[in-house]
């Protein structure tokens, strides 16, 4: 029941918030309490995920939910393995940080906290789902609160950003739904398939043995169809990652979203795209994946280099960080494409570490915006001397993001490169070597930002800035600690998802 409690604790919190007759302060108290409870539960879930076997799930619950016929049996089937356990832990971590940062929100407090908590139901549910239909439902639940959180509590162009986010993700969802339907109908009429045609576990297992893949029963048509379904699902997830050219919603959404929502967006929502690829897209179509590896690697390269170049040209601090996310998520694709243990390890480490580091970066931009009410990189200067604690944390976050060893960002990049160079597709070496350019470009835009914001003479306009408050510091600490700890000692992180990596590699690159 632990997992179910974890998923629905925020929902209980949401109801409590809605029923509360208290003032803003009390509502914040209720919201924060449930956020903390959720985080504790998430940690407990993650603690269960060490030492699992390959393809093994724990905390599994499997009940019939909507039983229409023996073919159409939608189940409440949840469970976690190392990968989802790690991401649930990350969700809890970021929920606390974003929650603390949300204490400053004073417009429509009740609605805000209700949406904030509902968002976590969607996220946690998606990570825990082992039934495709359930997965899809949680996936959609996540969309709505996000839409409102940007659209109501966002910046000046919030409507544009929210609608863009919503439509873009919805378009992706439709492709995902189409894919789910095709897989479902094919399998229900496939005599060899004995499992539940909506169960992620059953389909993954079937993909290992089925001749011609899970669409094999359709014969030649299945072989033609499979790449299309793969591509459709890939696009659905790629929108979330986001993968070039589907990334343009991200800068707009980030720029308009309030700080805590940017933190969740960059820290968690982008990871859902990568998670979907690992959980559904690749294991369902291992053969197609092998053929597509080059293109996925190429997209990773484009994300890294193109994202870095665009980030370099930004004058808006937050937009620069948003594009740096585009660039850094490219490493995830590059690592996936390699089909090697190092590459997969690097990609998944990048998923986690980018979550903590980008969360930290967006909190940092929030601190500056709070004081200056603008984010123009050219209108700061010398904040290091006025706000030394902030300056230290901010430069640490940026150095972590540019991959300085001893901070966690290093490992994802290092292992992605090591693995990608070994990659199993033609052209892997060239793509990897080209991606190395990203190392320099990243250093360029971060060091420029440090120089413009933190160094030089104190800009007179920043004369009155106070150093970060205790609350702001507390919102950052849960992210600073793992950035340093996993930077120095990446072992536990690798250990938790190692069985998953072995499992998926056995699936896609036997």
């Amino acid at each position, binding site marked *: 029941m632990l997992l179910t409690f974890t998923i629905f604790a925020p929902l209980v919190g949401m109801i409590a918030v809605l029923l509360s007759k208290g003032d*803003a302060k009390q509502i914040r108290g209720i919201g924060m309490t449930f956020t903390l409870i959720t985080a504790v539960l998430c940690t407990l879930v993650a603690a269960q995920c060490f030492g699992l076997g390959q393809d093994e799930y724990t905390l599994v619950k499997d009940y019939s939910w909507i039983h*229409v016929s023996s073919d159409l049996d939608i189940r409440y089937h949840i469970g976690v393995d190392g990968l989802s356990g790690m991401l649930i832990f990350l969700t809890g971590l970021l929920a606390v940080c974003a929650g603390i940062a949300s204490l400053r929100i004073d*417009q429509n407090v009740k*609605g805000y906290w*209700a949406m904030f908590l509902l968002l976590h139901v969607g996220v946690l549910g998606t990570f825990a789902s082992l039934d495709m239909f359930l997965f899809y439902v949680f996936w959609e639940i996540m969309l*709505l609160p996000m839409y409102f959180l940007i*659209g109501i509590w966002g910046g000046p162009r919030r409507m544009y950003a929210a609608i863009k986010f919503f439509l873009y993700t919805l378009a992706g969802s439709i492709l995902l739904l189409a894919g789910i339907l095709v897989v479902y109908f094919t399998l229900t009429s496939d005599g060899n398939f004995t499992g539940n045609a909506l169960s992620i576990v059953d389909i993954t297992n079937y993909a290992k043995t089925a001749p011609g893949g899970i669409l094999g029963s359709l014969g030649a048509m299945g072989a033609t169809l499979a790449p299309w379904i793969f591509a459709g699902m890939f696009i659905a997830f790629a929108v979330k990652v986001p993968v070039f050219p589907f990334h343009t919603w991200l800068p707009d959404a980030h720029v308009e979203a309030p700080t805590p929502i940017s933190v969740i967006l960059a820290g968690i929502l982008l990871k859902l795209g990568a998670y979907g690829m690992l959980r559904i897209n690749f294991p369902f179509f291992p053969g197609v994946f092998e053929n597509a590896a080059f293109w996925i690697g190429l997209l990773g390269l484009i994300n890294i280099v193109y994202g870095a170049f665009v980030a370099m040209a930004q004058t808006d601090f937050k937009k620069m960080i948003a594009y740096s996310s585009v660039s850094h998520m490219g490493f995830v694709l590059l690592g996936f494409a390699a089909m090697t243990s190092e590459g997969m390890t690097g990609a998944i480490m990048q998923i986690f570490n980018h979550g903590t580091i980008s969360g930290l970066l967006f909190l940092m931009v929030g601190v500056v915006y709070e004081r200056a009410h603008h984010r123009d990189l050219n209108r700061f200067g010398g904040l290091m001397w006025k706000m030394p604690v902030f300056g230290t944390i901010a430069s640490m976050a940026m150095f972590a993001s540019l991959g300085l060893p001893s901070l966690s960002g290093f490992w994802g990049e290092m292992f992605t490169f*090591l693995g990608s160079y070994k990659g199993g597709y033609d052209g892997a070496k060239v793509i990897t070597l080209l991606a190395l350019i990203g*190392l320099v470009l990243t250093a*360029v835009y971060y060091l420029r930002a440090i120089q413009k914001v933190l160094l030089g003479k104190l800009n007179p306009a920043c004369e009155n800035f106070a150093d970060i408050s205790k609350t702001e510091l507390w919102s950052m600490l849960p992210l600073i600690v793992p950035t340093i700890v996993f930077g120095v000692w990446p072992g536990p992180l690798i250990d938790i998802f190692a069985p998953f990596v072995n499992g998926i590699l056995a699936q896609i690159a036997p």
Partner: protein
Amino acid sequence: MEQALPAYVPWIIFLPAIAGLIQQFMGKKLPRQGDILVIGAMAGSLALSVAMLFGWMALEPGQFFHAKMTWFTLPNGTEFYLGIMVDGLTAALSIVVTLVATLVFLFSSAYMKGDANYERFFFWLSFFGVAMLILTLADNLLMLFIGWELVGLCSYKLIGFWSQDLANAEAAKKAFITTRIGDVGMMVGILILYNVTGSLQFDAIYAAAANWEGSTGLLTMAGIGIFLGAVGKSAQFPLQVWLPDAMAGPTPVSALIHAATMVAAGVYLAARMFPIFTPDALGYIAATGAVTAFGAAIIAVVQTDIKKVLAYSTISQLGYMMIGVGCGAPWAGMFHLVTHAFFKACLFLGSGSVIYAMHHAQDLKDMGGLRKKMPITFATFLVATFALAGLPFMSGFYSKDAILYAALGDHSYWIFGFGFAAAFLTAFYMTRMVWLCFFGEPRNQEKYDHAKESPWQMTLPLVVLAVLSIGVIYNQTHFADTFFRTPAYQEQFAKTDSNENAYWAADAEPPAHHDHETWFTMLAWTLGPAGIGLGLLLYARGKRNEKSRVMPQAMQSYAENLAYMDDLYLGAVVPGFDRTAESARWTDENIVDGLVNVTGRGGLLVGDISGDFDQVVVDGAVTLSADVAQGAGAVVSTAQTGRIRNYLAGAIGATAVVIVGVIFALWIL
């Protein structure tokens, strides 16, 4: 061949690490902001390094200390280690690092006294020491790379220590980015080696290189790639541009990081990876070293800032060390690394002492005649200058001699020629600087009158380093013989064509130093004095000053414009990247996103006229949000809370529609 690592060796790293942490978190409460703690810890590391050196020398030739523990394991079972390996290379560098660091820390306690960020300065110094020792003691390329990047971070922070002045921040940024370009090359090398070896342990890499299975070209590429890391860090052509700017940092930093240790780490890397270099890679290394040694020496001749003269001199000398490695004599390169570390640190600290006395003036135009005011600084500076100029019986003489002889033995005659010319220029520009600084008439009477000798914390390190610049205390033969007699090196020596390598390869007694050909010995003896003589001839009569032209016009302007490299980078390369970034941004906003907007408008249109599903989700969302936008300015009230409830109902309703729709679809189809 491995011997168990003595238990005290890891403490060489732990001591300064613990001191740095205590100082960082409690510095404000400690007396003198904890500087004594940091200095003491480094002195402790020095003592342990000395013990380690003697411990290692007591081993049989070819043996080394090694210990490792698993750091983490990849899912496929590949293990990565935290390990320490102590062979001659490590023992030598760790003495250099801890000794120079201790002296520089002591020096800084006076030089930086009263600085508003004194505490932060000592923290970064301490951090640097730790990172440099990780780099030195590592038994694998991954740890070395980590130390490598961390010393880069410390260098960045310390160059920009006074970054209220944007020029200093600029210099720091330039240093970090330029070295990072070199690191890309190093990554290429690491990737190739890992791909073949499946490990980043030095012993595994040596073994893989010795029995290389891929093409030779690939191994050459790996070697040159690794070496490019050293090109960045050691400021070799064409990435040398950052080091002169790095002089923006406080002078003790220049002495420690940008003269004695971090920049020399590139040479250490090249020497450490020596067994993997193919002849082509070695040729590339030697050529880079020769071009750098000579090119930078010319530029040093026209510099007017005493720290800039020393900076170009450092670049030039690092080039020398690279010649040594490239010509198959890493022991000669390492020997020069050691001697250079001491005399160049002495020169930098000496210049720091002068700058301190001159109240932070560092241009030669304000100096002159200082020998009377600062006798200790002057005497030690002179000794170190003699060492750098390569006067007989001084340390630089022996190490430079070893490198030139190796170039000759390698039949690299043009490299020998470049090194030869650079040695002459070195003696010349040092004489010029010493004369303009310490001799003649004071050129800025006011500053001269205020100048006085520096306190003992500053003069003591100068004296120690000056003593270490005297050559007879080094036993060159011993250095070369024992320091590199591990099997991996011997195997590589056997392959390279050099005067003495045959001896090293075969455990034989090496030839004594005076066995060199007579003409070579005579040349070596006269090179330094000749350069000094020319310098005296030109400057001692007092008719020339720091601005006088000393070379043909074309050469003079080439040198004054720093070989046009900065113009190239700042005029073409950097703007090129910026323009690319700008066009990427334009493309993203207008083309990629433009397409999205067009599609989006079309989609909305379809949404309006199509069925319920679209109306509820798409249009409904738009309407609801528009409501909110209108009411955004309103005060929070119960009415609004009610409205939120409506939105929520809308949201849940929409979700329900989706769910029902999907079930319906599944059921119908």
